[in-house]
């Protein structure tokens, strides 16, 4: 237990992933779903870095994580813009209300 290996990080990432999924499925607030997505992304990024550290891929995992971070930032920005618009249109942030294709 005192030697930290790949498995430790992977299990941790799995836990993060499940928490993120739980958040995504149970929160009705759209921003909450976004937060869940961020958790899931972090779990994935953690896996990538762990494989970069303990695997044979060199720095590739770290590069991929960089892209994950950048894309997550882009995703959050666009998502928040959409939510603001959503709120403006529907006067609520409840994701369940957005089940029609009409504004």
């Amino acid at each position: 237990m005192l030697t930290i290996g790949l498995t430790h990080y992977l299990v941790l990432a799995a836990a993060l992933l499940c928490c993120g999924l739980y958040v995504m499925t149970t929160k009705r607030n759209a921003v909450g779903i976004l937060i869940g997505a961020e958790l899931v992304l972090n779990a994935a990024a953690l896996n990538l870095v762990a494989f970069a550290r303990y695997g044979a891929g060199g720095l590739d995992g770290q590069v991929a994580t960089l892209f994950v971070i950048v894309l997550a930032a882009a995703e959050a920005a666009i998502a928040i813009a959409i939510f603001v618009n959503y709120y403006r249109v529907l006067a609520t942030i409840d994701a369940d209300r957005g089940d029609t294709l009409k504004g």
Partner: protein
Amino acid sequence: MSPIETYLVTGVLIPLAGFVLLAFLGGRLGKPAAGWVAVLAIAASCGLSAKALWDWTHLDAAGRLAARTGPYEWARLGDTVLTVGVNLDSLTIIMFFMVTLISTCIFVFSVGYMAGHSDEIDHVSKYHRFFTYLCLFDFSMLLLVIADSLLLLFISWELVGLCSYLLIGYYFHKKSASTAAMKAFITNRVGDLGFIIGLGLVFVHLHDLSLAGAAAKFRDAWAAGSPLFDPAAGLLGLSPATWMGMLLFCGAIGKSAQFPLHVWLPDAMEGPTPVSALIHAATMVAAGVYLTARIFVLLTPEAQLFVAVIGCITLTLAALVAIVQTDIKKVLAYSTISQLGYMMLGMGVGAWIAALFHLLTHAFFKALMFLGSGQVIEGCHHEQDMRKMGGLWRKMPVTCATFLVGVLAIAGAGIPAAHIGLGGYFSKDEILAVAWHRAYGREDHGAAQSHGSVAQANGLWRMGKGPTAPEVSVADIDQFIPASWAQPPGEHASESGGAAHHRPVADATPREETHPGAAQAGHARAPGPRWLWIALFVVPVIMAYVTPFYMMRAWWLTFMGRPRDHHVYDHAHESPLMYLPLVVLAIGTFVSSYFLFRPLVAEGAVQMSTAPFLTMLYDGEAATAEHAHGVPIDHAAHRALVPAVGFAFVIGFVLAIAIYGRGLALATKLAAALRPLHTLLEHKFYFDELYGVVLVGGVAALRAVSYGFDKYVVDGLVNLSGLLTRVASWFSGVILDQGLVDGLVNGVGRVTYALGGLVRRPQVGRVRNYILFAAGSVAVVVLWAAFGRVK
């Protein structure tokens, strides 16, 4: 990348840059400026391709090989590597130059053409959009030309389709234009479906989507006697390889408007005239022929026959329909279809070089004629009916003269004995010569011996100012043909040794019956009955008389005779911006085609000669020996052709002038006399109606059947269950007491409601439910992976 590749790639990217620039800033550039930006882009591209062409003609064979640096790895799918690169050979270079040169002319013409057009819809100018699409169109086409993998080719192929859709539907506020655009798009999709299935077959069977790689694997598979070539392994008695080739060719059928799918091209005349010129000359329909040329190495003899038959049918139908058309652009459209049929016929009978040569010459004179018709239409206040024109030569002399050049070229005018003629004379003649060879050549090996496209290639190469030494070409052929594939399996061992170097390039035709391996593989024999091959020669020859007739008819009705509508006549004028490109193209039609294009295309054939089924058809060596002494082309096929088609254009012209020389009176009488035939042609063989009945009616029938099923079967079941429920409840009401029945009914209701809610929940558009289901499925998979495989 080598410099030449850099020129080409840059030449592809410049129109793309123009597209991006115009897409984002076009609105601000305003009316003339946006057009000139496009012209600038394509002119730069043209300049680069000219430079590439110049450099290419100054390279020797080794240098040309070295100039090709690709392919580069693009993506890796398992053990299959997708590559991209520039398919650098003479054909690419010459096509590239042709496309950019003609596009430049057309773009310049467009600036003049669009100047007089209203270009506002809902107060938003879409002037720049026209040139934006044009740039994208050219980018796609150029990408298609340099693509060296089928995948890249397919991508650019679809881009070309998209652009044609956008441009045909440029006047989308007109119902007819948007319908035509959709028709073109959907018809093309039908062809593309075949293409993509063929692509899948290539991927499955050959594991390589690059042109060279697929060809090599195809060759190896043939040499190894793979089941790919076994008719029993395929459907309908055709081998999988044949199916592959035919399906790939389906794409070309759609894009080049061949027989079953030709209906879109006449309707595409709804687009602005420069677009028609671009589609008909340089880009869209050329793409189909170009594709066929590129996949030629993958065509088995059966598939080649398929190509030839399709081409033959197309050229016949289109030529006949063209006779009765009165819309100047429709005449040109049908003539395009007809000429494309010639090209496909050429491909099918093995006249690879001639077909491409015809593509190039046709591009010039067809662009010329379309731009001329655009000039006429623009000058005549958007009047397209030839019956209202006439006598326009006084008002637009330059257009008249240049249009005549185009008519002469497409009619194949030339002096047979002297080898003087316009582009169409040589190219069509060669196609017919090869067709003749296929039809009659087998009886007369002695005459056929001296004929063949590869042989012509070498001969012409020397005759013209071919840049490379004759020895190189022979060496090239040998270098590109591994000893193992030119003969069928098992043959090589007996012939090896001293014969290996001296091996005939492809005299498999006379010998094919003697190859046991080939006979077993069942593809070395030319398929099809003899009469079919004769028909493939005779019908095009007859149509070679029809072509000059309808072209001269169109020219005469438009420019000669007396003015038939003074309103149109008085308005007619021409503008320099529009006729300058015409002059350029006319000169191009005159000069460049024979001396520049022909040798280069032929040189491309040297590389193409790696195709097993191409070289099998020809016997290059004898011709090579003959032409090494500088003997000009003079062989039996051409001798045979001189009486057959040598003066076809004269007869066609005379006939046309005789009928239409004095106006429409005689023609009207003739039409009345031949009423049924005339009606049939006027309705274009009722293809549109047929499709309307079969396809639209089919869908309607399907709808009716579904509706009936829904109404009678489904509703019947529902009603039956309702009835049963009523019976049951009545029954239970009689037997059981009221409270229990109520309870039961309520219970059933509740259960139904709950079930409904359960079933409804997955599909109410709630994103969280979707996530939950996705996660659940993943969980199931993971759990299976974790616990399911325990032994």
